[in-house]
């Protein structure tokens, strides 16, 4: 991949190593009718684009590409919008360089 092309986030994440803990997501979104502003912000500012608005206007998460930065926790855990934990030991993103 050349640095001069605009990359998609999927291509960026594809470079990383992950050990996904299948069936045990470490972050979950509380069921809601309409998302709070902070929850909605995550669809834009999550650096791994884990959060997306689904077809019925709710925010959903797929945490497989999570970089474990904690941005969503800082914004949305206190309000109860999300539940946040680190992956089990050994799972999740495994940085080669960090």
């Amino acid at each position, binding site marked *: *991949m050349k*640095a*001069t092309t605009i990359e998609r986030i999927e291509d960026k994440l594809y470079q990383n190593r992950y050990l996904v803990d299948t069936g045990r997501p470490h972050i979950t979104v509380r069921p809601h009718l309409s998302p709070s502003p902070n929850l909605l912000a995550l669809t834009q*500012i999550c650096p791994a684009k884990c959060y997306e608005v689904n077809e019925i206007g709710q925010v959903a998460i797929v945490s497989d590409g999570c970089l474990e930065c*904690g941005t969503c926790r800082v914004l949305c855990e206190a309000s109860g919008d999300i539940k946040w934990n680190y992956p089990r*030991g050994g799972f999740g993103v495994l*940085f080669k360089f960090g």
Partner: protein
Amino acid sequence: MTKSKFDAIVIGAGMSGNAAAYSMARRGLKVLQLERGEHSGSKNVQGAILYANMLEAIIPNFRDDAPLERHLVEQRFWLMDDSSHTGVHYRSDDFNELKPNRYTIIRAQFDKWFSSKVREAGGTVLCETTATKLARDRSGSVIGVYTDREGGVILADVVVLAEGVNGLLGTRAGLRDMPKPESVALAVKEMHFMPEEVIAERFGLTGGEGCVIEAGGTISRGMAGLGFLYTNKESISVGIGCLVSGLAESMENPYRLLDAFKQHPSIRPLLAGSEIKEYAAHLIPEGGFKAIPQLFGNGWVVVGDAAQLNNAVHREGSNLAMTSGLMAGEAIFQIKSRGGLMTKHNLSLYKGMLDKSFVMKDLMKHKDLPSLLHTDSHNFFMTYPTLISQAAQNFVRVDGAPKINREKATAASFINARSRWGLISDAVRSAVSWR
């Protein structure tokens, strides 16, 4: 393992955790260090620059075998608008010294090395283990931790919380608050690989010399933020960080900010032809002195990023982390060696040592700067960089217009943008918070 009690459990194998674990293990304390990654460093992200003196205080001969990339001889500060940069460069052959002052490092490799020193010193490092909860007795004193491994609680006299900026244990136990969106920055970073000689040629480097670029301006779209580019041996770390509060308000997308930074005409040629091998994200504590939580209590101390010990103004973090880890370890050793208990009263020794060091003095010095940059970010990161670029271009461009007209136009552009009062006020507030 659960049957035996440790002198200390260290949560995390980053800079502060490794410094704490090493300093205690080498003094003969029975230390257990827990790390959730597959090896120490595999969850850790930093720019990254290593300040030699602080590591030297812990491992004097680290240069013999630590994985170091380049020693820095040149630092560039760039103020950017969309098409230009105005720069201050400092380069000195003095930095080509026998024991260089600063190095670029790659954290996953460096932390693995640091962790091997903890093991050599006799510490037990348990990887792939996530600490899930602090164990406390009826009086509330911390007596150990629970992990996601089977076997229940692991007991210790003291727990060193070196769990990083997004540490769960201390915040969940109510020992400190969760970081606020305005006191942490989200940084995203890529590793761009290219041959060693290409890096040397592009940055004017020979041998093991390295160069750093730090850049502020319209690249953060009016948010408080900073871009950076660090030369490693055969890669370049390039990234950008902005306050989480700024990102949430503007809904700017961090990887698009990074892409735009990489596409900037001043940066693009430096990265041309590189191969990207990793994309990482991490929070950086930016709250400074005012965001530092309670640092010690009955059976626990907190060190490094978890304690918000980061000097955002000078972009120093890992050295504060190492120093705080070292001091926590030394304090625990001193208490232990005189037969004392790990009470809040006794552990205040750690805070006392930290207060006397550069860590607290530097953070105290800049205690008002984080809030200034936060409340006035648009002016500092958008208006001024644009004005300064125009002023520089006015100064440099020759097109037959009289110089006096150009200078008047430059002055007028500043006054129009900020008003005389605004300019004076910004200057005074900046000076006061820097003092």
